[in-house]
């Protein structure tokens, strides 16, 4: 699938984007950025999981990109409980507090899925996608909760964890939840990444194979971690353009 300029210039191509509030884990109010194509047609939904640097501008862009491509999209603020301010200020509080608990993340994301499925435009299919810590959260959440039609892990570090890496907030390595993975998985990785390393990606792939899971992994030479982020030095345009096309092809197949 061609990512760029695949729309018809004569098409009604508007969208609405706003911040809403959903009921997340523990019934907590969680802010979420929502972007939706105009019109009443039935369509798939996408839940986006922001990366460790926070609920930031690039994730708002990513959310709108999915609406541009015909999906109802929602990106909950997983750091909402740390308060509000500029994204890096909120993230500083979360870092100081040792991150956010996996269970809370899974429940917040499942709540976002339910929110999408309740929309009058929903076709009942919702995908999950995250980068960096969000890639790990995608695999973890699609293993702990049901109802997803597709899941995308973009260079999620910490899917494979050593016993010393386990904490009360991250008590189980997502690779050890593979038997429960409930949706087809797309994974994109850079071969120069230090987390996940190519060996860890191999390990994850072997576990998926062993458990008969539906997955496709693509690995890019000349790229490391975070190669979609055009505002950071890790950006790799060629690999990013190909990667986005793979994401949209995967969702087109699984969310139609």
């Amino acid at each position, binding site marked *: 699938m061609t990512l760029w300029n695949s729309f018809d210039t004569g098409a009604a191509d508007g969208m609405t984007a706003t911040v809403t509030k959903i009921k997340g884990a523990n019934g907590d109010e969680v802010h979420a950025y929502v972007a939706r194509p105009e019109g009443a047609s039935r369509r798939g939904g996408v839940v986006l999981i922001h*990366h*460790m*640097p926070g609920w930031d501008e690039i994730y708002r862009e990513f959310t709108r990109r999915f609406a541009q491509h015909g999906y109802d999209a929602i990106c909950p603020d997983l750091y909402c409980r740390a*308060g509000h*301010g500029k994204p*890096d*200020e909120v*993230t*500083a509080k979360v*870092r*100081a507090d*040792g*991150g956010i608990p996996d269970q809370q993340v899974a429940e917040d994301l499942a709540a976002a899925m339910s929110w999408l499925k309740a929309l009058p435009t929903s076709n009942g299919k919702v995908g999950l996608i995250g980068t*960096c*810590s969000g890639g*790990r959260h995608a695999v973890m959440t699609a293993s702990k909760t049901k109802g997803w039609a597709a899941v995308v892990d973009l260079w999620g*570090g*910490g899917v494979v964890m050593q016993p010393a890496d386990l904490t009360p907030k991250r008590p189980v390595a997502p690779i050890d939840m593979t038997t429960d993975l409930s949706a087809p998985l797309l994974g994109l990785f850079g071969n120069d*990444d*230090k*987390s*996940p390393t190519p060996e860890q990606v191999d390990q994850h792939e072997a576990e998926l194979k062993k458990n008969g899971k539906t997955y496709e992994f693509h690995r890019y030479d000349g790229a*490391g*971690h*975070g190669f979609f982020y055009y505002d*950071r*030095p*890790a950006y790799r345009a060629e690999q990013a353009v190909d990667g986005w096309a793979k994401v949209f092809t995967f969702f087109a197949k699984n969310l139609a």
Partner: protein
Amino acid sequence: MCTNIATRTAVNGSATTGAGWSPVSEATIGFDHATHLWREHAVRLDFVNASGGRVALELDLASGRALLDRLREVIAEAERSGVDA
């Protein structure tokens, strides 16, 4: 990669920003994704106070090492001087 490397400590100090000086009571020291420094990762020093004010620094690893070495030297010299216990 997200390293999740972070630790924190109480501090008794002051920091200055464009808005002037204010007390700081806690520091988070970490090594993780850089926000502004043009590197993938940075040594991150975040000084905060109870009212939520924040002064943040991002340094590359070599700068972090150099700073640590000089800080150790200065503190050792300060302790030898006996000026302030």
